[in-house]
């Protein structure tokens, strides 16, 4: 049992930190532009696919370097030539634009790369077991995933709070007009932030592609979880996104690891039902079955009781 718990924690960390890489970019974009980028997971998928192609020529590490840059450039282009135009029509239009963009990117990926699963592998350098615990291996690649996500969180935090660029960005979030009056090019900053956010999603895609399978549905599978996370954490709050990512990652991981559910609960309560009971499906429900739904449940509860999210203070 102990081993399951330890590994569940490790797995939860890996998932949570991966989710955070996406959520951090998303929350940056949201803080600036006030719009949830529904195509964010699609940039994550693009990252994986581009890295797959690039790594075919210059290896995994080249892909890790180049793919996020390409994805970021693409993101900046989308902001410059698409989103900026739609911005004047209001938030709903922006949201719907990114919604359509997600749809289009999925189609484009299938157009260029086809629909089958891609053979995108982890680099040989990391192809060993980092440690073995109770007969289970924890691969070095997963360790690498944790390290890189933590590194990005630290770097982001330092840049945003300590550097001049970070201060300008923070100022443009709260006082765009003042910043513009000070001579900064606010639309340009917006574009850069959007590019940087999508590049972060690209990084997540590059490192997730080999372990979570590179296929056209990978954005959909990641699904709305990322948006859920930024809302739970509080829109626009980086620490909130961090906490919510870990919370969701661990929650799902523990739920899958738990071998409990309604049968155990009912037994504990001393209640029993016939198999023919109309609600039999409910009485036999197990925690792992509902693991993927838990974040949504959490979201609804958070929104009902604290509409601003865990760490947020902005009402929309």
């Amino acid at each position, binding site marked *: 049992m102990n*081993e*399951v718990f330890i*590994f*569940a924690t490790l*797995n*939860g960390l*890996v*998932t949570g930190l991966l989710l955070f890489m996406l959520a951090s970019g998303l929350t940056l974009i949201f803080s600036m532009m006030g719009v949830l980028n529904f195509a964010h997971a699609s940039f994550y998928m693009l990252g994986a696919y581009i890295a797959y192609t690039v790594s075919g020529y210059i290896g995994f590490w080249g892909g890790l370097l180049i793919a996020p840059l390409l994805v970021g450039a693409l993101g900046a282009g989308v902001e410059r030539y698409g989103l900026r135009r739609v911005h004047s029509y209001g938030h709903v239009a922006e949201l719907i634009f990114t919604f359509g963009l997600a749809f289009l990117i999925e189609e484009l990926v*299938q157009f260029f790369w*086809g*629909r*089958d*699963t*891609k*053979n995108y592998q982890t680099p040989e350098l990391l192809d060993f*077991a980092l440690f*073995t615990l*109770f*007969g*289970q*291996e924890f*691969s070095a*690649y*997963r360790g690498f995933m944790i390290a890189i996500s933590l590194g990005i969180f630290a770097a982001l935090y330092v840049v945003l709070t300590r550097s001049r660029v970070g201060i300008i960005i923070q100022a443009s979030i709260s006082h765009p007009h003042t910043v513009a009056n000070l001579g900064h090019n606010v639309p340009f900053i917006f574009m850069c932030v959007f590019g940087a956010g999508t590049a972060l999603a690209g990084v997540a895609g590059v490192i997730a592609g080999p*372990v*979570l*399978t590179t*296929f*056209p*549905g*990978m954005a*959909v*599978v*990641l*699904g709305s*979880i990322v948006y859920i996370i930024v809302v739970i954490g509080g829109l626009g709050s980086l620490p909130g996104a961090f906490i919510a990512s870990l919370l969701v990652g661990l929650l*799902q*991981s523990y739920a*899958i*690891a738990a*071998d409990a559910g309604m049968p155990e609960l009912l037994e504990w309560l001393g209640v029993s039902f016939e198999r023919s009971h109309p609600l039999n499906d409910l009485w036999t429900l*197990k925690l*792992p*079955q509902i*693991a*993927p739904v838990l974040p949504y449940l959490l979201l609804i509860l958070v929104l009902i009781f604290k509409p601003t999210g865990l760490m947020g203070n902005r009402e929309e």
Partner: protein
Amino acid sequence: MLHSFSRSLRPLLTASLLASAALTPVANAQDPVRLGFMDPLSGTFASVGTSGLNLLEFAVDYLYNSKGGILGGRMIEIVPLDNKQSPTETQLQFRRAVSEELRILFQGNSSAVANTLNQTITRHNRRNPGQEVLQINYAAVDPILTNEECSFWHFRFDAHAVMKLEVLTDFIAMNEDIKSVYIIGQDYSFGQVVADNTIRLLNEKRPDIEIVGNEFHPIGTVKDFTPYVTKIVSSGADAVITGNFGADMVSLARSIIDSGMDAPIYTFYAAYDGITATLGEDGKDRIRLIHTDSANPIASKTRRDFNHTYKDAHPNFDVTQSRLVNALMMVVTAMEKSQSTDPYDVAVALEDMRFTNIGGDELWMRPDDHQLIQPLYISKQTDEGIEFDADNSGYGLLTEYEVTADDTALEHSCRMRRPRR
């Protein structure tokens, strides 16, 4: 890869789809015999559908059209119907098929779709006598289609899930090293059929094998299988059994391999469409598959020629679903025998048909439940002794175990209602 514009524009020009009101074409001796192929051709599941369409169109040309056609010189034309693997879209495409006078429909992917089509056809045929439609199911394996829900208008050319499990559990039972198994599957009807029957059959055949896990995960939404694999590893299972397909299959197998566990994985759908290439060396001698076709070694020259010609025409595709070729050949044989393309005549001629396929396998269409009785094979992924590999990866499926057709037949509970003519 595409059903190109030429083919697809034809119905638009000739039938002018929306307003093709009263024109019922009179069958001409030279009119092509038109068969519908209904499977996902766009969307996430399209790769399986397009590879099936490719194979069927190739088989039609290779076996019949290039040799002067059937029924005294009529060509066969395949009309693709894209159902996007959705039951709702299936209903819409079915209406299109009726509109275009397509009376024989090939359909395979997803049991939910096959069930919907079966019900729709049964209702349609009852309400529109004289315009019946026939369902040629080449891949949906839900047992109920030839049991509780069997229909005169449905023929299955794949072996159903329990037939396959019967053979798979025999094979596992023979392996004395296996003392415990872990069952994991997608949380839907097929996953449940696999789990329930594996437990039942293993209990009968090898009561000493312990079922150390029986896990369902949501279909198509699991990002990372590692948490599940953690449970599998800590259960100490000697083998894993799964009915997963598509991305769920690849991700699960990858996670198992990454965890360092070296137990064999028994599967239904873990090959082709990028899966074999992705698993590659890691899947060697570990991935085992139960299916209806011996991919290697090739048993007959006819089959070898067929495969080679196909590979020459479509270098990026494999002969993944030879059942489809069986179905086509048996349907054509039934047409020749009855000298008719009417679904009722074809159905009657198909019943009790015995047929030797291009691989030399003996097939029998059991008339009582319209289930094809055919040999079954268990193969493993390897790169040794492979003549036809998968995904051009060098790795392919090599037959390890074979059960003759008679030994795969199971009892059925079908009470077929036959239409009166």
